[in-house]
């Protein structure tokens, strides 16, 4: 076999075996020949691919532009290359890379096009996957940015500081808000645990050191702290901190992260409430003492009066019949004297317990009532029943002892709460109303509780009368004496079994 024969034979074989599709066209670009691979890529047989038959297998969306570009290249005798998709009759889509070069005669006259078609589906799939990954990354990045923005906005508006602490290297990071919360103006200061302790109120340092030590020793993962810091202007602020601690496999602390915020306002409010509570409790104790002493005085005075009266009678009878003073008269006179003395002591004790400091001031009626309810919420562990308020906006100021009047309102509402505990009702209600009545300020406190039995209603204001297991029975007696000392009246409006009770108090304007 000579070389040219070999070459021809060899070419033909190579063309048939080639993994690359090959084709040849005429001057108009109509296909004259395509190898087996080209037919495979297009999904057509040799006959179908002839002329412009190959274009039938183009993917519909690519067809128009692919043909237009090809025709344009042929018209201008230009080399041509493009990527487009084929779709076989079975629906399989294949990406092809198509390139053609004008076939020129030695004199430069175009005779046709020779070209190849390569299956680039795999490359294209990888490319698409790559693009999808990039898009996903971008979206994730955007989400992260948004999440960070949200967190930042939340932290800023809640004025929450964030810090982290590295126990291994004894370093810490504080964000700007943390510096502000601790009252540190120099942001170049590098914080660490010792610096944190130095920022605290001296009285809180030992406590924080101790509780932190305990928490770390117990490998506590979450813990809360409250402490005070002193700002440069000597302002004392209360801060609250919540932190998470991370330990390594050897259970050794490695780092922690935490948030810190200012709770001064809440603390001050709490202190104010507690102060109010102490005052009310103190007043209640004093009034109870006064009421008990007054009751005792009355009880003791009765027999004392009898003793004194009889003794005096005896003295006068004796002096009538035996004018000369004798030992018996002297003894009786002593009885009279000592009874008088005992009477004076009793009166004095009562006077002392009555020496409560009454402080009348113009007081906002609705604030006074809402504060009293706030006090009950604070003091009682159980949930309060629904308390509705109805305030007459024309009743702005009353002239009373705030603490004493609050004591009355608290007492009455507490009685209502207890009356509601005795019953099984789904809607337990207490209604507090203020209004003007006959030129007087009136307040009613009504509940839909158990009610007071008819035969007991007239006795409820008596001292030492009670239906409660615990209690001295002086609550309502005290309420009445407080209201009467204000020149007002406290009465039971109505009370019906299982329908509820209503008390009304009136005060001069």
């Amino acid at each position: 076999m000579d070389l040219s024969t070999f070459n021809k034979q060899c070419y033909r074989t190579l063309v048939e075996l080639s993994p690359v599709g090959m084709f040849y066209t005429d001057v108009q670009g109509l296909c004259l020949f395509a190898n087996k691979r080209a037919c495979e890529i297009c999904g057509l047989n040799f006959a179908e691919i002839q002329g412009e038959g190959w274009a039938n297998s183009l993917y519909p969306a690519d067809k128009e532009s692919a043909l237009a570009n090809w025709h344009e290249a042929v018209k201008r005798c230009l080399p041509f290359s493009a990527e487009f998709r084929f779709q076989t009759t079975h629906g399989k889509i294949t990406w092809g890379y198509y390139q053609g070069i004008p076939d020129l005669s030695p004199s430069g006259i175009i005779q046709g096009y020779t070209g190849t078609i390569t299956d680039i589906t795999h490359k294209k799939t990888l490319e698409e996957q790559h693009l999808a990954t990039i898009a996903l990354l971008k979206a994730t990045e955007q989400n992260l940015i948004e999440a960070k923005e949200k967190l930042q906005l939340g932290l800023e508006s809640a004025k929450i500081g964030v810090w982290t602490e590295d126990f291994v290297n004894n370093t810490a990071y504080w964000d700007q808000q943390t510096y502000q919360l601790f009252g540190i103006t120099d942001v170049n200061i590098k914080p660490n645990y010792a610096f944190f302790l130095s920022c605290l109120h001296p009285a809180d340092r030992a406590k924080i050191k101790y509780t932190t030590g305990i928490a770390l020793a117990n490998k506590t993962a979450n813990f809360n702290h409250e402490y005070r810091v002193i700002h440069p202007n000597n302002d004392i602020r209360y801060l609250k901190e919540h932190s998470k601690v991370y330990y390594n496999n050897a259970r050794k602390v490695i780092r922690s992260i935490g948030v810190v915020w200012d709770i001064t306002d809440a603390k001050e409010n709490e202190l104010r409430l507690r102060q109010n509570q102490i005052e009310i409790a103190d007043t209640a104790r004093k009034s109870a003492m006064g009421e008990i002493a007054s009751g005792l005085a009355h009880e003791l005075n009765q027999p004392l009066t009898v003793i004194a009266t009889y003794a005096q009678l005896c003295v006068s009878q004796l002096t009538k019949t035996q004018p000369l003073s004798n030992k018996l008269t002297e003894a009786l006179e002593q009885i009279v004297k000592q009874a008088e003395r005992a009477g004076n002591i009793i009166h004095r004790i009562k006077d002392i317990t009555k020496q409560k400091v009454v402080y009348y001031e113009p007081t906002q009626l609705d604030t006074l009532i809402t504060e009293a309810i706030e006090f009950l919420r604070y003091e009682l562990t159980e949930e309060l029943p629904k308390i509705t308020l109805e305030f007459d906006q024309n009743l702005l100021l009353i002239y009373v002892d705030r603490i004493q009047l609050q004591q009355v309102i608290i007492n009455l509402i507490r009685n209502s709460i207890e009356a509601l505990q005795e019953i099984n009702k789904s809607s337990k209600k207490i209604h507090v109303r203020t209004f003007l009545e006959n030129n007087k300020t009136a307040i009613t406190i009504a509940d839909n509780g158990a009610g007071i039995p008819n035969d007991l209603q007239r006795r409820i204001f008596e001292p030492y009368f009670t239906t409660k297991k615990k209690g001295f029975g002086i609550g309502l007696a005290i309420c009445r004496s407080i209201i009467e000392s204000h020149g007002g009246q406290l009465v039971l409006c109505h009370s019906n079994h299982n329908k509820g009770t209503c008390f009304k108090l009136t005060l001069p304007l």
Partner: protein
Amino acid sequence: MDNSIVYIVEDDQAVADALCCLFASVKLPCQHFANAQCFLTYYHSNININGCLLLDVRMPNISGFDLQAQLKQRSCQLPIIFITGHGDIAMAVRAMKAGAYDFITKPFNNQLLLEQVQRAINLTNQRNVNEHFKKNLTTLTSREQQILTLVISGKTSKEIAQELAITLSTVEMHRSKLMKKMQAKTIAELLKNYFLSKLSLGNSI
């Protein structure tokens, strides 16, 4: 007056007994009521009682002050003396403002209590005399009234006869009639009752 009684409203029996004993020692009749309601019931059928009312402040159901208010509503003229074991100034002021005669704290001085009770009774008696005097006045004829005015202004019967241009014996007759009507034995008594009445009843005479 003979029908004066000390009415005691006191829930403590021992105290009431001691008080009764005290009044008995000076021969003052007294009557005890265990609570305000009992006294109100009694008063309802004995409106014209005389004397004085001793009231405890602190009593169950109706307190001393409540009873005072209820009696006032019924226009009761009985003077009230409060006796209390737990009196303070505010309470005393309240009682006096509401028209009480006195406010005495327990244990009390017998003598002081008796004196105040006696004064209160005298006051009622005088008030009764005054009322009586006023009532008697209305029974006089216009001539008798005319003569009474002149007698009070210090004129003798002779001067009156001259002024009214009537005979002396006519004047004497009117005078003896009006003295009988006014239940006065002497001119002095007539004058005393007249001026005391004028003092307490004002110019209505």
